[in-house]
């Protein structure tokens, strides 16, 4: 069973959304992601130039730990997505991760379009949950 965890952070680095499959081991995921935020910040700030192009949105493999690989993605409004997958899941290629981030970004934009959603609130949209679940099941 593949482990995969998805987290989203607001620009102020507090979590907007957390989901992991399977539901246990969440603490370990959360710890990993929390430490990966440093790497994300580092990459984001390194890109200091005014032009922010698409490729920078996808940060790629942040760092591989012994068990897990952490991928990062940051939007133009500094919302960060982090995906943690276990290293045993070798079938997940970079493209797939990118497509996952793309889908996430689309869904996140849809959530933002909802006027009842205040940016910074935890995301409670059922549609978003559905998409994330579908994605995780697909990759897991």
């Amino acid at each position: 069973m593949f482990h995969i965890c998805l987290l989203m952070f607001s620009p102020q680095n507090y979590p907007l959304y957390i989901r992991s499959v399977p539901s246990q081991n969440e603490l370990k995921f959360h710890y990993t992601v929390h430490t990966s935020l440093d790497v994300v910040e580092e990459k984001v700030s390194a890109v200091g130039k005014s032009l922010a192009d698409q490729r920078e949105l996808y940060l790629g493999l942040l760092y591989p730990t012994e068990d897990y690989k952490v991928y990062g993605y940051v939007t133009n409004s500094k919302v960060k997505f982090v995906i943690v997958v276990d290293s045993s899941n070798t079938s997940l290629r970079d493209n797939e991760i990118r497509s996952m981030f793309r889908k996430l970004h689309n869904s996140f934009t849809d959530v933002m379009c909802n006027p009842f959603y205040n940016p910074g609130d935890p995301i409670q949209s059922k549609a978003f949950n559905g998409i994330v679940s579908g994605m995780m099941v697909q990759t897991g």
Partner: protein
Amino acid sequence: MCTMAAEQKKKSLRCRRKKIKTDIYLLCSVAPLRHRAVLLQSATIGGGSGQTQAEPAAWRCVFTGNHSCLVLIPSVVRQTGATYLEEGCIDLFARRVSASPSGSLHASPPGMDQESAAASGASLISLTEHEQRYYSGLHALCQADAPAKLSSSKVAELFKASQLPPESLHKVTEVCGAKHLGYFGTAQFYIALKLLAAAQSGLPVRLESIAGNLPLPRFAGLKNEPAPPASDPQGAPSGSVAWNAADRSSFRHLEANADKKPEPWSPPRSPCSSPPRSPLTYRSYPYSKQRNGVDAQISYDGKLSSRSIVQLEQHSSPGHYVNKPAAEHAAVAQASSAERLNQPATLSYSDDDPWRITVEQLDYYTNQFKTLQPDLGALILGAVAKNFFTKSKLPILELSHIWELSDVDRDGALTFTEFCIAFHLIVARKNGYPLPESLPPTLQPVPDQHQDERIPDTPESSEPLIVFEDAQPRSCQVVKDPNSVARLDPTLASRKHDLQEESLIQDGSVTHLGSSREKPTLRLGAFPEKPEPHQELDPQMRTKTRQRSYSSTSIDDAIKKAEEPPTPPPRPQKTHSRASSLDLNKLFQQGAPGVKSGWLLPPPALPPRPSATQVPHFLKVSEQASQNKVQQPNFADFSHFREEEESGVKLEEQGPASRFGLSSEDLGSASQQDVSGTPHGQAPQKPIRRKYHPESQNLETGAPPPAMPFLPPAKTSQKLLSRQKREIQMAIRKNRETNAVLRRLNSELQQQLKVVHQERVTLESQLELLRPLAST
């Protein structure tokens, strides 16, 4: 003493139960059961109508603590048939009880209190505590002018709500004694309720039937009706919660003022719409005691023509609503309009589908839409819709879910159809229907001429566009905008969307989506609209971009696409103030990983002179070029004429238009060297074409030059040499022109990119500013 007396009486009653008809009523002078005779036991024999006036002397009263009294009506009237506690008797007693100061009641031995009475009663009686509560609730529901007399119209309505056939109702009325009495007293009412329960359970409407344990009578379409414990899982918790709340509040109202009793019920009861008709299971509505326009509007939705009482309530509700704080909204005006609308409404509600919008509802929604946005074809912005729907007092989470369901094109704004969907969902939710996970089929928007939900890509849209992949989320958002834009009626001239405005501006500047950055929450005022063809072009482009957004390789695609058309994209010419500040080096460096190699098309480095002696020189140059990832696109023109050798180096032949005019000194110098070098060389007899494939994608551009075999350098005559020189010079000139064109193009694009980036920064800063305001 009293306890024992009561116990004894009860025992006696018990043993005599079969023979006598005895009613034990608990009269209570204390709220919440004030003046209500709670039927503790009703054991009857045989049916029969008629009742006699039980004489007060025949009563056995047991005063309990807590200001209540057990009244035993003995069997003295056995011969006369069923005995019921007359309302008059209750009146009398109630008056007695209330008249005497409460202190006197305490004189009664503190033995049995209400609870124990009830408990002991419960063992005897068929009125469980649940039933008690329920009946008292219903009793309060039907309470009318006289203290103990129930409003017959309300009772009739209640009976109708039980959905029993009329003859059963008549029988019930007869059996419970109200017919004889001419009105419904409490006793009759309770007996009637039990008879209704019996009838609904299938038992005959007789007095014996109510002796047993019956489920609660079910009334459709009544607010404050608790879900019968046996059935109705739908919304039961919320229903019961609401019922309890309503119950309590109803009790408070009862205490407060008997006159006001109908009123609190009116808004909740008015929406006894025929949705209940559809599924009987939706009997309990999780109404909250909210009074606002939406409630009234829900009352509009309910087709209450069959319920005159509800009409009455509706009439009262506008008045009631007016009393509400005006802050509650213009929705009150909506309510009154809803009432007016409802009056002539016929029962055209489709019976079995609560999700279908009826004509009246559609009219109402149309009116509401017009109050928000006079133009029916235009959009309601998200913030406006949010304010409007927040008035419905639904929780934000539900409103958010409703929004997600109804905003089918995901643009953060509502068209008229989407607005109707959202409104209908809100109405349904307030009527108690749980929100569906996805749009019911009858509610799904029918794509009309206004809506082009998914605009098909057109080939022509892709070509002139360069997608700025650096701003994918913006392009994504902008996709929604043009969808909304496209959805607008093209004939309508004015739009109120800053979406459009921004998109237009960006169109003017960039012509493509990628650069436009839309934050839906930052909608600004209306802006002048753009010519229609632009709009139509944009959505297509944007849809296409959205589909391939986030692709890291799409820049190459875009570049290639830009290379393909011979003419520059249709954009207004901008001043090239920054032409000189192009950060070409950066572009070069970016191309280093190879992904962006397309950007690094160098100006067509001049082909090496066809000369045997120049071969090594050319080779050097070529290698240098290759190190710079230089493509030598214009070699195609020259490879025909280039005589020679260039050992193993292939130069790609590309059309002149498909260049980016990136100039670099080193390349220029290389070309210069070439130019200088070649005249000295010897032109081979056969033109040698070399194909240089630094990257695979260059194959797309232009026609791949036919591969020419490498011919050994051959001696050329001077004549050939001069001819070639001339041709080469022409080629140089042409290449230079191409370079200039491409350079200008590039600078334009860079300029637009910077402009768009500025806008993006502005918008982001605005968003940051707004965020602390938005966050609660």
